């Protein structure tokens, strides 16, 4: 398998231009789905290769529980620079697993706590909280608890009736399309391979844009949704707790600008020689290459280990 075993570890580098192009040129729904799949496949491939390299690395350690045959020179030759890389893969894999476990745990914990905080309120879809801090978010249901939209009176006070409808439509779109799953998937992928981080940012943004477009469709007026987002952002800045700041221009003005522009086309799979086409086909090619080289490496190592294992 040679150096190809390392390919899935570095192929996620292609995610950066892909994410950029897709966010600019694809419909947000297509971009969210495509980028999430690319991230998930590349993350799995990268982790598989890390495992393969780790097996070779572990087999050379004294006192390891693996069969003796696995440390044969033939096996070690399968992975270039096995001494260094193999041992480096062990802590790397531990970091990946720990980070993913921590993210999953915090995700479920926060959702559970948020639902518990709403106990005692009537079981309605929208929970209005009397709070001086303007905020709103979609809370996906867990187990028997239903999906909820949480919004504070402070935020509602800043919005006109049509803008409130836009806000609710936006949050409902998040819940209906299960956006939290996409977001969780790309977060885990970014832990599996740090080169996939641009996809995390891109998917977060694309999911917001997707919900914005759904809201615009539901309300029937793009400008109303744009105004609602703008007002909500300005209100949060005035009285809210500090939120993470982004390098200018941040996602909120870009969302507003996109809503003030005409609706994005929801056409079929784009042509190759357009920017959108380059993004889509580039993503498909990169993912396929990543999947194939990690499959190739996995199969090769499997056969080498199988021959090296005394039966």
């Amino acid at each position, binding site marked *: 398998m040679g150096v190809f075993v390392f390919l899935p570890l570095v192929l996620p580098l292609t995610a950066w231009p892909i994410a950029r192009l897709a966010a600019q040129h694809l419909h947000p729904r297509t971009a969210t789905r495509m980028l999430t799949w690319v991230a998930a496949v590349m993350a799995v491939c990268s982790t598989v290769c890390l495992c393969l390299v780790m097996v070779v690395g572990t087999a050379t350690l004294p006192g390891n529980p693996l069969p003796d045959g696995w440390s044969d020179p033939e096996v070690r030759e399968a992975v270039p620079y096995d001494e260094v890389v193999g041992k480096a893969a062990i802590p790397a894999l531990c970091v990946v697993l720990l980070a993913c476990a921590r993210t999953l745990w915090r995700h479920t914990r926060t959702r559970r*706590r948020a639902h518990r*905080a709403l106990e*005692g309120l009537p079981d309605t879809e929208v929970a209005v909280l009397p709070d001086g801090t303007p*905020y709103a978010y979609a809370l996906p249901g867990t187990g028997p608890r239903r999906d909820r939209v949480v919004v504070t009176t402070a935020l509602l006070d800043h919005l006109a009736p049509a803008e409130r409808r836009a806000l609710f439509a936006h949050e409902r779109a998040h819940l209906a399309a299960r956006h939290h799953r996409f977001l969780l998937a790309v977060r885990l992928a970014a832990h599996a391979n740090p080169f996939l981080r641009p996809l995390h940012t891109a998917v977060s943004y694309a999911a917001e844009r997707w919900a914005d477009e759904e809201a615009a469709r539901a309300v029937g007026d793009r400008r109303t949704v744009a105004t609602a987002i703008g007002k909500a952002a300005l209100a949060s800045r005035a009285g809210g707790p500090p*939120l*993470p*700041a982004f390098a200018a221009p941040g996602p909120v003005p870009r969302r*507003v600008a996109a809503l003030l522009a005409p609706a994005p086309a929801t056409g079929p799979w784009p042509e190759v020689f357009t920017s959108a086409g380059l993004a889509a086909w580039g993503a498909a090619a990169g993912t396929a290459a990543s999947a194939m080289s990690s499959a190739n490496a996995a199969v090769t190592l499997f056969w080498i280990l199988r021959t090296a294992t005394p039966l």
Partner: protein
Amino acid sequence: MVEHSRHHRRRAQGELESLVLSALREADGPATAGWVKERLGEDLAYTTVITILTRLLAKGAVTRERAGRSFAWTPASDHAGLAAHRMRRVLDAESDREAVLASFVTGLGPDDERLLRELLRPPRSDGED
């Protein structure tokens, strides 16, 4: 009995808080913990009721005043107010809440505010720009 009240506490702190607050809100004026315990009718320990009332006090959902040797409790907010307080605690504890809860808007960068106001200026009627 102890086992039972511990089970209650584990099951749903929030639920018990809501129950106690409901009971207080049905009272005519300030009520004692004993009254709340009787009113709820469940096999809640007196100390459990006190614990919950103290927790509600910390959340600003009830107030209390001395009445002889014990306290008389008055509701200060409704269920929505209590929920709002609890939700703020959840959000404040979660440093990276964007990760879990899809907020309507994210924070604004240094230049974003000016950009936003420019974008949201009402369109001119003459159709220029």
